[in-house]
């Protein structure tokens, strides 16, 4: 048994980095930025508290208890604390690592375990399987919703998750990946060549959004290459605490994309972008520093990329709309991309841009959080909806499918008139 190699009372190797936890000097600057702390007022549900608990496990003060597991999943992993932390602590990443530990400390058993393994290790890593069996509309029939309800503790889903999941489902179109040509040529004067990382949720649930992304890129003068063999970025696995599968997916995507001769690897999913930018750290032990560094440099969120290259505005059509912008956590906090989307929106002629109060406050979606903690997610969402209402906007722009689902559902439930659009859809409207 290699158990004794683990740090303190962590049950598994691959522990959160000890120096990273020690970096926290407990100033509390993170507290007012943490949605779960603001909701509960409970120190252990704050970034400072969560890091203190993980450190207590590392220091042999406590075992890896149920409370640790609970906190690691209750953390939204929104990274707002990272943005606010002058000391450079990343409580979200510490909790991600703890989710992995939780799966070891509290192993699932029987059918529940098999289902989880099937979803995370077989279905998500395989684009074909995903498209044929995970197409959400068919999920109903194929996997059998009854079976899912009976096994809803698999992903530790809250009691109201079903109704919500159903309500959240957008109108579905056929997945984009099989339809998209591997190479789409640039229009107008060519400006370069990019690879497109097409996320699972984008191809399955928002194929029309990613179609706009490709359209905007090509009309801006970029040739777009979308490798068919690309796989899931690994974010759902990291989220559920399956670091091993995350690494093998990362390995695959890294090798695949680094073979292409492109100026950048562009994604329109903030969650994917954040995960791709973390490959460098995830695969650190492979020793391929140069390759990983170059990969990291090439990963660009669509807004980041277009803002960097400069938007060609000469042919843009006017869009006469009142618009506001919700910042996806995985774009602003995890990737530090905050000003760029606003600059792009404002560059479109005719737009009346209204800043959203607390624009970078999480919407409560946070991967499966919104299904696991339906009540808390709702409270976080309500705060967001109030702020949206105050802007008087007609369009709510965002840049991540998780936020998109949650916000569209919330607005519909509240009977609010705003339509949610991805930033490339807005740019698409202007592109014509």
């Amino acid at each position: 048994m290699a158990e004794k190699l683990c740090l303190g009372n962590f049950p598994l190797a691959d522990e959160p980095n000890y120096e990273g936890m020690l970096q926290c000097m407990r100033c509390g600057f993170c507290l007012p930025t943490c949605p779960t702390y603001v909701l509960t007022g409970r120190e252990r549900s704050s970034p400072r508290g969560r890091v203190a608990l993980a450190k207590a496990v590392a220091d042999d003060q406590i075992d890896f208890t149920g409370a640790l597991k609970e906190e690691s999943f209750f953390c939204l992993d929104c990274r707002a604390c990272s943005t606010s932390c002058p000391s450079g602590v990343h409580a979200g990443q510490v909790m991600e690592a703890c989710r992995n530990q939780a799966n070891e400390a509290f192993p699932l058993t029987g059918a529940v375990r098999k289902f989880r393994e099937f979803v995370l290790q077989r279905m998500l890593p395989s684009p074909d399987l995903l498209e044929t069996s995970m197409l959400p509309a068919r999920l109903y029939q194929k996997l059998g919703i009854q079976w899912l309800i009976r096994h809803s503790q698999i992903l530790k889903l809250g009691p109201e998750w079903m109704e919500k999941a159903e309500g959240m489902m957008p109108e579905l179109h056929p997945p984009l990946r099989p339809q998209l040509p591997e190479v789409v040529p640039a229009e107008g004067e060519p400006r370069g060549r990019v690879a497109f990382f097409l996320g699972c949720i984008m191809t399955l649930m928002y194929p029309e959004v990613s179609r706009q992304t490709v359209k905007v890129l090509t009309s801006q003068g970029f040739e777009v290459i979308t490798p068919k063999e690309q796989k899931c970025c690994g974010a759902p696995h990291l989220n559920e605490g399956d670091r091993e599968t995350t690494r093998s997916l990362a390995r695959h995507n890294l090798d695949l994309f680094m073979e292409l001769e492109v100026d950048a690897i562009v994604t329109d999913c903030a969650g994917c972008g954040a995960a791709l930018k973390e490959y460098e750290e995830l695969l650190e032990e492979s020793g391929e520093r140069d390759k990983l560094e170059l990969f990291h440099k090439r990963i660009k969120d669509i807004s980041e990329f277009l803002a960097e290259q400069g938007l060609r505005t000469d042919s843009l059509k006017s869009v006469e709309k009142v618009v506001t912008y919700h910042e996806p956590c995985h774009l602003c906090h995890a990737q530090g991309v905050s000003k760029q989307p606003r600059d792009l929106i404002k560059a479109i002629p005719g737009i009346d841009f209204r800043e959203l109060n607390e624009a970078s406050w999480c919407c409560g979606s946070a991967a499966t959080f919104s299904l696991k903690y339906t009540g808390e997610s709702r409270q976080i969402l309500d705060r967001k909806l109030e702020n949206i209402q105050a802007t008087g906007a007609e369009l709510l722009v965002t840049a991540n499918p998780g936020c998109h689902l949650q916000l569209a559902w919330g607005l519909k439930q509240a009977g609010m008139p705003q339509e949610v659009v991805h930033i490339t859809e807005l740019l698409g409207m202007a592109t014509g």
Partner: protein
Amino acid sequence: MLSANAIEKLIVLLGRQNVLHEKEDLITFGYDATPEIQYLPDVIVFPTESEHVVEIVNFAREEGLPIVPRGSGTGLSGGSVAARGGIILCLTRLNRILEIDEENLTATAQAGVVTLDFFDAVMAKGLFYPPDPGSQKISTLGGNIAEDAGGLRGLKYGVTRDYVMALNGVLGDGLTFTTGGKSVKDVAGYALKDLLVGSEGTLGIITEATFSLIPPPQAKRTLLAYFKDTRTAGEAVASIIAAKIIPSTLEIMDNATIRCVEGYANIGLPLEMAALLLIEVDGHHASVVEEADDVRAVLERVGAAEIHEATDAEHANQLAAARRTALSALARVSPTTLLEDATVPRSRLAETFDEIERLSEKFQLKVGTFGHAGDGNLHPTVLCDERNRDEMERAHAFYHELYDKVLAWGGTVSGEHGIGLAKKDYLERQIGASGVNVMRRIKHSFDPHGVLNPGKIFNDEVTEEKRG
């Protein structure tokens, strides 16, 4: 360990969500922002009505448990840590602003209101609450009062004490008290509120406070001055004061601090400079222009390497916000940041910088210094690693020797962080055994049973008997 029965009593009193006692909660309510300090309480309670506090105090007396009042736990001297176990009385859920009185220019709020929320609420009515401690985004008014918190504006506007007009709360025997009021003048008997401000939770539990407010300044200008050596920066501060200019803010950062803050905030601070001063003058439009020119003239005369002015209000806010992160930003480069709160008469500032430099060389330590230079209040911070015993010993020796000089110059061991657990020994060096004895007598008359935050500021008689 509290009995299940006792916990149940508290739950009946406060509701289940307002009583925490799991090990994970005890750990996470076992610290504040003071390094090397961690003690487990027995239970954490959150009163949601002022009346609850009386009942909690009575419960504590029955159970023989000490009570430690706590806000958001951002203190820097261990004041809100349960050093002897007992009850953490967390006031964050008593967080209502009760009144903003525009006729008397006062506002009344419960102890758990966050400082910046209070600032924003009164500002919305065109009024100004100046105290702005570094942690204002999360610190509570109750905590600010208990520690007599300062901030960046202290030089011109004073500290928390200067704005407290009235206090309500509970004493250690369950008696409630009200002291002060909205009258601008009040010499009726002892100024009990002045004893309670800065009492670090040892005299009474403050549940409600009334503050005086002032009209906000109409204009503001922000200057940044860079220096090639810290001594000149110190001289610049003394010269500004000696020129009879009182800026609202006069802050200093040394090179180590500049580098760390820039590493976080990315706002173009000069990485190669030995020190910078952040200077704000505010007031009427005309006087602000004049004062800014006067400050500039002094800076030029003293020999500042470069003088810049904030481009607009947003830039000025960025600079002040960046300065507030100084301590936490220093934590980027070392696992432990041990900081002190030495304050000297301002004419001694340049010498203090020399002394800090000398001692950091003598003890072979990495030190970052920043602080409220205009107040003579410096935060020399040793960047160390608590796992390195030898280094920690040298760090403590560094402060020991620094305080010799600070006290010899007529300075104080704490300008704004309080004594708490961390600085008890230094206090006695400053005020002597008789000074501590007077404080003990005061403590005894407020808290005869010794249940309120025992062992803070000074050791109580009980521990001394044990020692003897």
